């Protein structure tokens, strides 16, 4: 049986970040638009459309520079929209051929489809290419398509085609002559190699193709052979079709709006069952599950549950999701439910023969979930001090088992315990000429007997998080004779007095 004739179509969409954004914003398409990436204030233009280019917009411009060109609309780069556009494009190209290989770089979408044997389905390559372009145009993306019998030749042709030519068809065997006038940049050479060819005066693929093979290999190594083949349109390619991304994603549209959580749990159980089976087939377990509920009246409600260890225990998952949704109930009846899971490695715990029995990890997760439900997620874990002078600044970190317990001992001073009030309580303070006289705390007036301070602190002066405090350690007495020792703090930025803690 003779080998079928190979035919490849390369789809090339340049300025992809701006195209991805304009796809869903048809009203902006006609005007000049530029896409900025980076975090303010250090943003730069990473992509722009033709109208913007015509006005003088360049890659690398800053917002201030961009502002000098009137009427250009600046948009922020969106990775999510690019992903969804890519997915849509791949799906679109996939409908012409199931064998796709994607070569997308940062600024352009590049995908090659093996279209061998599709003539009976889509006609000649020209009509396939035109149909492909039209379909992509409907999606809001302008692309060009080149088809040849060689994979790399198709990519080079698509990259080197002038933007006005949307379709480039090169018959089998004529790749070399079609490639010859193209500049070397279409090969995506590394700078060192590009410099060598520039020195040699090699500017086009044709010039590169005409170099003798062996002397070329002697000078630039085996890569020379490959580049020469690329330039002649004869470079072999092992087509590696992309697989559809593995996504543990299940979606169900409910027949009628569901208000009761218990009713939802039945559906939830079914979806979880599917997810667990799919994960288990790949010897994986569910590490996290995100439930996204589409609600009546628009809007969605999304919750993610992430236990300490990945698990395929359906009952555990139902329990955890149940508690989470109980704690954060959806605001309206649910129309559809989507469960997306992150896969993780199956948890394996090797217990020692003589090691003490530990609490069951899954039960601990349930307990922690219960605590979280009561106190809030951000309040569970162990506190860790931050490297800052800002008083009381700490972050919560998830619990973890320390390798070895560290013990610190302070030398030389007696420590008086201070019970920190969290949050600090507001007090009213009577001050005369910088001396504290009295204060009202918890509806009682205290006369200050002794005050030590002020202890001063300030920081983060370069940002909006600027802070400044003055604090006093005070000994104060209530008229009934009771004594109180505490730490009074004045927030200098907000001019506010608070009792930060009480000494034992």
């Amino acid at each position: 049986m003779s080998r079928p004739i190979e035919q490849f179509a390369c789809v090339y969409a340049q300025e992809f970040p701006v195209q991805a954004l304009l796809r869903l914003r048809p009203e902006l398409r006609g005007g000049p638009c530029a896409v900025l990436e980076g975090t303010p204030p250090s943003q730069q233009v990473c992509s722009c459309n033709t109208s913007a280019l015509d006005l003088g917009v360049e890659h690398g411009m800053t917002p201030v520079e961009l502002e000098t060109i009137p009427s250009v609309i600046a948009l922020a780069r969106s990775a999510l929209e690019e992903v969804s556009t890519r997915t849509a494009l791949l799906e679109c190209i996939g409908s012409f051929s199931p064998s796709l290989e994607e070569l997308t770089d940062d600024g352009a979408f590049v995908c090659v489809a093996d279209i061998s044997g599709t003539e009976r389905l889509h006609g000649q390559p020209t009509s396939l290419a035109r149909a492909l372009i039209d379909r992509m145009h409907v999606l809001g993306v302008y692309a060009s398509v080149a088809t040849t019998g060689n994979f790399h030749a198709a990519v080079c042709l698509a990259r080197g085609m002038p933007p006005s030519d949307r379709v480039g068809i090169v018959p089998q065997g004529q790749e070399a002559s079609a490639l010859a006038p193209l500049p070397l940049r279409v090969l995506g050479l590394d700078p060192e190699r590009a410099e060598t060819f520039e020195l040699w005066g090699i500017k086009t693929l044709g010039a590169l193709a005409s170099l003798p093979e062996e002397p070329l290999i002697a000078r630039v190594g085996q890569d020379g052979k490959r580049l020469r083949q690329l330039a002649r349109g004869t470079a072999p390619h092992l087509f590696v079709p992309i697989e559809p991304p593995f996504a543990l994603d299940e979606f169900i549209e409910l027949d009628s709006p569901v208000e009761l959580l218990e009713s939802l749990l039945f559906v939830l159980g079914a979806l979880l069952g599917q997810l667990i089976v799919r994960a288990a087939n790949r010897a994986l377990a569910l590490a996290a599950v995100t439930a996204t509920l589409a609600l009546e009246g628009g809007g969605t409600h999304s919750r993610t549950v992430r236990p300490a260890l990945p698990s395929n225990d359906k009952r555990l998952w139902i329990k955890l999701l149940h508690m989470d949704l109980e704690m954060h109930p959806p605001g309206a009846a649910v129309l559809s439910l989507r469960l997306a899971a992150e896969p993780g490695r199956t948890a394996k715990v090797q217990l020692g023969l003589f090691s003490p029995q530990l609490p069951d990890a899954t039960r601990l997760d349930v307990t922690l979930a219960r605590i979280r439900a009561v106190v809030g997620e951000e309040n569970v874990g162990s506190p860790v001090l931050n490297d800052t002078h800002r008083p009381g600044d700490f972050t919560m970190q998830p619990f973890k088992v320390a390798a070895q317990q560290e013990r610190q001992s302070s030398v030389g001073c007696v420590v008086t315990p201070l019970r920190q009030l969290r949050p600090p309580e507001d007090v009213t303070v009577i001050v005369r000429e910088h001396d504290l006289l009295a204060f009202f705390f918890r509806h009682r007036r205290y006369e200050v007997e002794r005050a030590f301070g002020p202890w001063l602190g300030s920081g983060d002066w370069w940002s909006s998080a600027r802070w400044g405090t003055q604090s006093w350690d005070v000994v104060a007495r209530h008229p009934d004779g009771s004594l109180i020792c505490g730490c009074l703090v004045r927030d200098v930025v907000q001019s506010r007095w608070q009792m930060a803690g009480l000494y034992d």
Partner: protein
Amino acid sequence: MTSRYVELHAASAFSFLEGASQPEDLIERAVELEMPAMALLDRNGVYGSARFHTSAKRNCVRAHVGAEVAVSSLGPRLTPHAWLPHQHIPEHARIPLLCESREGYQNLCQLITRFKLRESAKGEGSAVLDDLREYASGLICLTGGDEGPLASALVSGGEDAGRQIVEQLVNIYGRQSVYVELQRHGEREQEWRNQAALRIACSLHLPVIATNGVRYARAHEREVLDVFTSIRNHINLDRAGRLLSLNSQRHIRPAAQMTQLFRDVPGAIETTADLSERLQFELSDLGYAFPRYPVPDGETMDSFLGKRVAEGVARRYGQKTSDLLERAKKQMEHELKLIAKLGFAGYFLIVWDIVQFCKRNDILIQGRGSAANSAVCYALEITAVDPVGMDLLFERFLSESRGEWPDIDLDLPSEEKREQAIQYVYQRYGVLGAAMTANVICYRGRSAAREVGKALGFDQESLGRLSSLVGHFEWKGPTDTMAHSFQHAGFDLKHPRIAKYLDLCMRIQDLPRHLGQHSGGMVICQGQLNSVVPLERASMPGRTIVQWDKEDCADLGIIKVDLLGLGMMAVLKDCLELIPQHYGERVDLAQLPEDEEVYLTLQKADTVGMFQVESRAQMASLPRNKPDRFYDLVVQVAIIRPGPIVGKMMHPYMRRRQKKEPVSYPHPSLEPVLKRTLGVPLFQEQLLRIAMTVANFSGAEAEELRRAVGMRRSWERMKNLEGKLRAGMTANGIGPKVQETIIENISSFALYGFPESHAASFALLAYASAYFKVKYLAAFTCAILNNQPMGFYMPAVLVKDAQRHGLRVKPIDVQISRWACTIEHESDGALSMRLGLGYAKGLRKRAGDALVVERISRGAFHSAEDLTLRVPGLSRKELTLLARVGAMNSIEGVSHRRDALWQVDRAGRLEGPLLRQQSEWLREDSAGLPLEQMTTSERLVADYAGTGLTVGRHPMHYRRSELRRQHVLSASELRRCRDGEIVRAAGCVIARQRPGTAKGFIFISMEDETGIANVIVTPDLYERQRLVVTRSKFLIAEGPLQNQDGVIHVKAINLIELSDHDLRTSSHDFH
């Protein structure tokens, strides 16, 4: 009760990134707070003390001297508790030491020098207890604040450890000289330590003293300190955490506040005033004495100097007229008497000794500056200008009343010859006897923008763009502010973080960043320099520096000798060797004849490459000045300076020179003084003489007047002298109107006037360079190309200029070139110049030398492969470079550059020896070289990229026909155009200037194949076409031609960038 508080523990920005205020700002604040004295204790040095002292003197504040000295034996300095997250790196604790007496100061200097020089390279270093013991006398020790040993001992080992530390200090410095220091910055932890310190002081019966451990003058400068901390720790502010200060309390506090703060510690405040009174030492009592010069037995330094001068007089004036000889002898006698009276003989002998060393070792040396006013310097061969013959004024150099040392600058050929002289001084006066003066590197626009930007967490790319935009021009227009640069770099000034960034950048301007080495200033003090000022290692191996810069040294009366590198000296030296070798003529620099051809060349402003007269401004004035004798050149060198231009002296002189204005004098008595300069005062010496003539000032008084006018702050002194001047003039019968003119003359130019002696020294070199260029072009071009970088123009311009003057310049050739450029003899007897391998950018000298050695020992290279095999030191990149610039074109089998490239790429990837045995297998068909020859423009690109110049035709030549179609004229054609005619000129930009005196006008010099054309850009046009003006390599300028007295400029009204085909030519911009 008036509080008596003196801040005895302050650090300035000279604690390099640990302090945020200039010493002067600390004094200014002390004056505001009416503090009678203050002590400056910078980290491991007295870097800021000279400026602190000078400023304090001016403001009648007593400046105490001291330092915070790191001591490794006293443990690490305080860091936050281990359980607190922090990023402190371990450092040694530092003890604050104050100088009670001169002995104490000398001990402090020796102590710091001891541990600084213990380091093998430039570094902080730290003392050990033995060092402290050795140099304890005369010093007062405080126990320190957060940086001190007591604080860290208390935290790490409790009160017992603290007591041990204090006892150690008492053992070293004695009970009378240790004070337990308390600081209160509103920190809880600190107060706990203070209470412990009080108990320790009580138990050991030591006095307690309050300080504020000052790090900045005013509270808001804490921000600068935080930025410095972040720069010092290479971390941005957001992540610096506990490295930053907790609050802003370490500023200079008023006495009342300190008294209130320490009201619970009796005596802590009063002790500061008592201790201040005890500290008797001030820097004016430095005890510096210039070293003695060793003379033979039976001689004194004066007698020895007298003999050397007598020998010099015979040598210098022996063959001159008897009148000159007599005058010279008389002048010598006068000078020697004054030198003996002031005790400066040693200094002259030391400089003479250096000059003698250079002469013995064949190093060209010449004194410049005011030393050229001294006949003694001329006789000792320190200078080459005859002050008697030229009637120069000695008092400008040395005067009895000035109370300061004379200043002698010596010019040496740059690089190794200068280093040889410097090492001789080190060797003669010992490691502790001589050192270079420091050069304080301060934050400027770019460095401030870069480092503050990093601290605020801006990304590298934005910072790079910003620092490339921050102006480095001499003239700053209203839009050349930092804010403007920020906007140009694309920063939004309304964003609070950007606004803060800009604010901080401005605030850290001029604050010291680190200590560098001055290019040539040497301080000498035989064997004892380390007791005058601490010495430390410079980053350059074998060099030591003092902790003060040259102004500080001058302020404190420390004498220095400047050993300066002057590229032109090296060029002249090379010429003196090349000329006899290739022209067969002997030349003597001191006896160059006055030559008409040389003056004609100067008059035509054909001066590219000539010393001091090659700049655009010089070229513009030469045709007007038309120098035809040596003194005209002296004036020419002096007149194109900011001083005469700002003082409006240049134009009157030029008009008189061109006989467009009659020569007149403010007063007839001034005719002898001003005759040489056509009645226009140009030189500082003339100011002195005017005062001496019209107001009967003595030489010393006149010099005092010059200095008083020169110092902007000495109004009071100036007023007194002005009164005296007027009185003198009135006594001499000079009317009030003339008096006014004379005083105006003096005050307008004295600020900037140039010393005549200095101009004469430079004019000598200028004439020599002009003479060599006109008479021995090949030798001069070869010498100047071998001593780059120097001068005003890039090598490309020098080569093109030499070619226009008829010199054949040949390209680099691996078969012929040496590392340096060389002269070749052509068959027709003409001389040509061959470019050296050193001009191949990126070729390492070692590889180039190896190539030359191999070629000389085993003959020419037979092929590219032969070259590769015989010179294995050449890397593939270097081979490619040589092939690219055409240096391999003369090798057999290479017909053009790309052939060479093709072959070296093969030769650079040789097989192993086993495969090479089968050479038949590897042989390539040499007939089938596949690459095409470079086009002309490709060759130009390769030349400029590989060597920075081309020996072929000028790039503009290739565009001439196209330019003619556009009615663009060449530089030579411009000379034939009428004044006012609208012209178009084009060329390769070789220099852009925005002189401080030109009110924002920019001068662009453009070169084409026929010469150089000058373009004037108005500030308005610059604003409109900023990018074209600053970035274009090739330019078309349109506008009216100005042709005044043969000086030609195009006054641009429009500029167009000419596409440059990727040529990377370079220009010298904004001098």
